[in-house]
């Protein structure tokens, strides 16, 4: 059972464009939603995270939009750069019970120069 569904599986964007990756979750007990960025040959690294008490969080060119009623959240990368080319994982975690984050299946982003 996949508790966090991520789309698209792959994404190609031109330099300067907006990259959008979407995730949907099922378990309403999730209360922490991080995004991880993974470059080839490296481990994933935390990029940005949000809690459900806010609808948006922005850090530089990266923004998370959160829709609690729809149980959806998305990552927006503004002014996408070739250096943003990586695999992005959304995740969801509970503060109580199983605290292990559940990962989406990942989105491979390629930003063309």
């Amino acid at each position, binding site marked *: 059972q996949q508790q966090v569904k991520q789309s698209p599986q792959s994404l190609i964007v031109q330099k300067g464009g907006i990259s959008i990756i979407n995730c949907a979750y099922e378990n309403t007990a999730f209360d922490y939603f991080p995004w991880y960025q993974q470059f080839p040959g490296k*481990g994933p690294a935390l990029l940005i995270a949000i809690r459900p008490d806010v609808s948006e969080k922005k850090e530089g060119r990266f923004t998370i939009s959160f829709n609690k009623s729809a149980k959806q959240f998305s990552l927006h990368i503004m002014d996408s750069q070739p250096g943003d080319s990586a695999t992005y994982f959304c995740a969801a975690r509970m503060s109580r019970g199983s*605290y292990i984050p559940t990962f989406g299946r990942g989105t491979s982003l390629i930003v063309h120069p």
Partner: protein
Amino acid sequence: DTAVSQTPKYLVTQMGNDKSIKCEQNLGHDTMYWYKQDSKKFLKIMFSYNNKELIINETVPNRFSPKSPDKAHLNLHINSLELGDSAVYFCASSQMLATNEKLFFGSGTQLSVL
């Protein structure tokens, strides 16, 4: 200083062999994990240890045995390797119950079983 280091980076071996992957973290975290990443990049939790005690053991063949000699180390031993074990294995650590619990991942061990 590398926060989470795992060795070796690459491991090529024959079917049926036994191998180990070592992991160490210098962040003072109390929880360590092993993840398996398949060829489609899917990250699957295998084990989680908190203060040297096993707390999560997902559906993993018993050929995989984690060992945590202390809070800073979590090694993964694999017996009787099979072709399907080929993947990238990531060690990670975190501080459980931290307000914004962040996983720190190692750089991965690419295991190829021939």
